[in-house]
């Protein structure tokens, strides 16, 4: 699909939002709310390149954020959040503008509500996508990589563009519809997390187009959802570069469900992702593959303030080659078959020390390395084991 280029639109919308933000400080701030969070943890994933390369215990597990929401008028609201993230090699480290958008209520009555968002907004289409950097909103410190692949985090977390959200109370329950269109500017570092440090050229997301529906049936503990994603990327090689000019298309179909009981809950997402690569590795190269993955997480309220987590996460790089054997053969045996899948079993424990102070601990047992960096260039040097483990603990505070 072809869409108009977004850059000039994004630049203009960012400037408008910054202007509005600066005005907001000069106006009466009776509708201004602000919140934040700070968390620090320890993590270790030996024999992999997931967090670091020296297998040591790492403190690169920091999430800090501060946000504000300002009601400009009854129909208009301005919201923004800045975050500092450090996840080691999982995604780019540093301070960033997480979101900054104008929320315009186009229609609102007791049964139906429609909002338009303009600016940089979060991905509202998956179960945890909108708050994946906010540690106390997640069931686990490291989210299931089949769906929330960390190398893709900077692209999947949000977009600059336009979004619509509609919630409608009907006779069969609440229906929520989301639509968004935009793109994310990729820095060189972000490009290298996707394409490896050998990529010297310029990677760009041309657009990402998403839609989703969530259904919460009346008198039911269920929530069910479906989401679709279509995105194009382009790569312009540098003068001295391992890769060639190329294009990639990523398309996702996702299903999700959640069941809430008083002392336990289940949540699950299933994803099928199409990855179409043209040129890129060498001029004339063409590959079209479908990966599949799903996870099921169960939480149980062991005692007041304490929740236990059991999570199973399954991912196959090619749904027609779940053992990875064909993939390995296609590289002449150079890349082991375990780069074709990644299955993870996680046990975790969360304890609320206070209402807004939480300690979470978890241990992962993993088979396969398909969701370790880099998605387009297996890291044979650092991901040497088919079976590996990871643990993490994180203390988090929010206000």
């Amino acid at each position, binding site marked *: 699909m072809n869409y108009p280029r977004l850059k000039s639109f994004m630049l203009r919308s960012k400037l408008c939002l910054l202007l509005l933000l600066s005005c907001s400080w000069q106006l009466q701030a009776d509708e201004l*709310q602000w*919140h934040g*969070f700070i968390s620090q943890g320890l993590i270790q994933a030996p024999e992999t390149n997931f967090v670091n390369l020296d297998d040591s215990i790492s403190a690169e597990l920091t999430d800090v*954020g501060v*946000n504000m*929401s300002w*009601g400009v008028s*009854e129909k208009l*609201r301005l*919201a*923004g*959040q800045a975050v500092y993230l450090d996840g080691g090699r999982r995604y780019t480290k540093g301070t960033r503008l997480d*979101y900054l*958008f104008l*929320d315009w*209520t186009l229609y*609102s*009555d*007791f049964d139906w*509500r429609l909002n338009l968002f303009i600016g940089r*907004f*979060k991905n*509202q289409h998956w179960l945890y996508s*909108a*708050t994946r950097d*906010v540690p*106390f*909103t997640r069931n686990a410190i490291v989210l299931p990589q089949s769906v929330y692949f960390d190398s893709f985090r900077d692209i999947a977390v949000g977009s600059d563009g336009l979004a619509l*959200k509609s*919630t409608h*109370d009907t006779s069969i329950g*609440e229906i929520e519809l989301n639509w968004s269109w935009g793109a994310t500017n990729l820095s060189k570092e972000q490009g290298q997390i996707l394409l490896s440090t050998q990529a010297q050229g310029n990677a760009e997301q041309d657009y990402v187009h998403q839609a989703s529906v969530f259904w919460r049936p*009346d*008198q039911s503990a269920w929530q069910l959802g479906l989401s679709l994603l279509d995105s194009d990327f382009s790569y312009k090689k540098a003068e001295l570069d391992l890769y060639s000019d190329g294009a990639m298309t990523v398309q996702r179909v996702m299903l999700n469900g959640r069941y*809430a*009981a*008083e002392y336990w*809950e289940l949540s699950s997402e299933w994803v099928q992702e199409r990855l179409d690569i043209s040129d890129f590795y060498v001029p004339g190269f063409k590959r079209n593959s479908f990966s599949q993955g799903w996870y099921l997480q169960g939480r149980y309220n062991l005692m007041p303030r304490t929740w236990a987590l059991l999570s199973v996460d399954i991912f196959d790089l090619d749904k027609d080659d779940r053992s990875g054997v064909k993939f390995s053969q296609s590289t002449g045996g150079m890349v082991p078959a375990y780069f074709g899948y990644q299955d993870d079993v996680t046990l975790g424990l969360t304890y609320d020390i206070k*209402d807004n102070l939480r300690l979470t601990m978890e241990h992962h047992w993993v088979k396969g390395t398909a969701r370790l960096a880099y998605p387009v260039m297996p890291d044979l040097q650092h991901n040497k084991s088919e079976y590996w483990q990871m643990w993490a603990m994180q203390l988090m505070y929010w206000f």
Partner: protein
Amino acid sequence: MNIKFAVAGFVLWACSALATEVVTHPAVPMDQLTVTQLRAIYSMRQQNWPDGKAIRVFVLSAKNPIHQSFAKEKLQMFPYQLDRIWQKITYSGLGAAPVVLTSEQQMREMVANTEGAIGYIENSDELSTLKVIHVTQ
């Protein structure tokens, strides 16, 4: 062991006996709400009364037995589900979370003195400054 069971039984009885009333500022132009409408208000999706005035949502802390009773009886939800909704809208920019009050007495005062306010209290006869909202299916 028997004492533990007796205490647990008493706590369960005390919680089940706790009945809550949904209350609003006296000028709010409604006498009843459906569970779905009440959920829309407490999920912060519905932000205006039919006369256009802003809805001001007040809650007690998640650990307060009145809040737990309100969530389960009136909203037919569990407190942790409400926490998740409020955290999602607060930290992804979709809106503002309700104002958390520290006691039922403060809830009575804030709802009575704030235009467009909605809250909940333990069942009581002393309601002269508040409007009781009948919640229907």
